[in-house]
């Protein structure tokens, strides 16, 4: 099978996953262009997180094809290889290294060799320090660089995790519910941060919060029962009668 055209970054075709007979993904097809930011919404159990799991190698699809960056077949790779290819993932619950400082969290995430031997003998270089400084500026945690991540607020942890994703220098970021549990001001700041990031990278955001999705102002894909229900601008999908039925009809 030949790979899809060059400007496509992520290509899912006919992907199905079932757990004990429950179809979490059902013939899901989705294309993300290079440089695109996409919001994915859908009710609980629509398959949003499972979609991220199959792309990042955590779950193997039963059927279907997934290509990244031309013709790299993601269904054959493990998490570490996929991360090295340039796919970063943010979890729903902020997941940072609690007992490391903000600085060390970013240092561990920096792109570079991941081997055990290199890790035993490698020292931090000046270009790495500059990069960490730059990231601290982007995620607005410069003042807290020496604080243990465990002592950060919920919103700060979310940003730190986004910063760690950026440190990986991925081509594609998968972001799972970045605004969950945030105050309004934090939500707004997070939307701005993601928009800033989307200038250089492709971003896929899974979100429940419609105000947040509206603030992002990007193309929206609605998932339902493991496949795409509707796609388009936020206004287009929110007027789609099938979407209204799924969200309000039950």
């Amino acid at each position, binding site marked *: 099978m030949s790979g899809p055209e060059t400007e496509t970054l992520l290509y899912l075709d006919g992907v199905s996953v079932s757990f004990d007979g429950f179809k979490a993904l059902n013939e899901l097809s989705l294309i993300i262009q290079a440089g695109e930011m996409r919001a994915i919404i859908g009710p609980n159990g629509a398959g949003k997180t499972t979609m991220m799991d199959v792309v990042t190698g955590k779950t193997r699809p039963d059927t279907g094809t997934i290509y990244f960056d031309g013709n790299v077949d993601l269904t054959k790779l493990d*998490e570490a290889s996929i*991360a090295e290819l340039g796919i970063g993932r943010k979890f729903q619950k902020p*997941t940072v290294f609690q007992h490391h400082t903000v600085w060390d969290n970013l*240092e*561990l995430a920096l792109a570079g060799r*991941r081997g*055990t031997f290199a890790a035993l*003998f490698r020292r931090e270089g000046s270009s790495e320090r500059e990069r960490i400084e730059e990231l601290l500026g982007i995620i607005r945690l410069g003042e807290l660089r*020496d604080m*243990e991540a465990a002592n950060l607020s919920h919103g700060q942890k979310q940003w730190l995790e986004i910063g760690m994703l950026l440190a990986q220098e991925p081509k594609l970021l998968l972001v799972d519910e970045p605004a969950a549990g945030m105050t309004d001001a934090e939500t707004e700041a997070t939307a701005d941060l993601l928009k800033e990031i989307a200038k250089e990278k492709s971003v896929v955001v899974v979100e429940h919060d419609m105000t947040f999705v509206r603030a992002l102002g990007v193309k929206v894909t609605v998932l339902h029962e493991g496949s795409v229900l509707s796609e388009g601008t936020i206004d287009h999908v929110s007027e789609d009668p099938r979407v209204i039925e799924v969200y309000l009809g039950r």
Partner: protein
Amino acid sequence: MIGSFIRNGFDRSAFFVILVLVAAAFVVPALALYTTPASPFHIPGYAIPLMGKYLTYGLLALSVGLIWGYCGILSLGHGAFFALGGYAMGMYLMRQIGTRGVYGDPVLPDFMVFLNWDELPVAWYGFQSFPYAMLMVVLAPGILAFVFGWFAFRSRVTGVYLSIITQAMTFALMLGFFRNNLGFGGNNGLTDFKDILGFNIQAPETRAALFAASALALALAYLICKSIISSRFGKVIVAIRDAESRTRFLGYRVENYKLVVWVLSACMAGIAGALYVPQVGIINPGEFEPANSIEVVIWVAVGGRGLLVGPIVGAIVVNFAKSWFTTGALAPYWLFALGGLFVGVTLFLPKGIMGTLGGGWTALKQRRASAAAEAGVSVTDTDGPDGGRLKTEPAE
């Protein structure tokens, strides 16, 4: 490269610990050998192998502290690696007996003659050579740990499930070593040793040398562990402990990191076992008993698993208490005391002895800093107190 690796870990606390151990390696044997019993500094001969034994337990506890405290792998079977190292040393010592055994066979150890075996099993080949035996001290536990870890970590067995299979591993080995036809002395194990490297194993000088070797081995192992946890590798294993999937999605091969630290830890336990056997004079399948491995975990918890020095202190304190308890009228109650100690430490000193002492020191420094701040001096450190690396409820 190695130089900078070691320098990285060699801070003030490392210097202090190593200084104490190296000083002990020279001072204690000197006091035992060159002072008269009348002297107030005299250390009686019987105490030397006893203290040497504590140090080998300290090394075993350090190996468990490294993987449990820093990588979150709770091994309930580390006694197996300790015992394998001990058996490798025991086999060397058996072959040194030669014709001085009860049956006087120049090649076969007594138990083989007794079992009417007429040739040496293949597994015993080469053990007359000290360097070969020392290689086996490291390789036997190392290879077992590699095979075990390869499958366990690749299959992503973690947490309590991993602990259970480590326990099963040591239990299975115990059953195997109890059998006579496995060829390692069965129930009785290996004992009645005569010489090590040509020196009488009972001689005070040999015992002093074994004590010194134990102290130096512990100092070296501590330095290596300290360098590892101070390197980026150390940061990665702590990251694995705290958020394994995050580490994986950052592109680290978690199973490889775990395997390296696991095998290293097993090799350290093997060396501890090899130093233990000549000092206690026997190795038998009882060393594989699951309860032994669990006791090691208690030492680590008592000393404090968040610091490398914690397990060493825990092993020495608990075993000193054990020796003291079990030689007096209180002997029948030792297991109650051990259980009570574990419960008490878990409830009242969750960071262990060293973690609590370290935390108290940090808190004191912070009180001073805040007092200074009230006096009008600016203080920038806003970080919370955290002496140990493991966040638990503060001890009251």
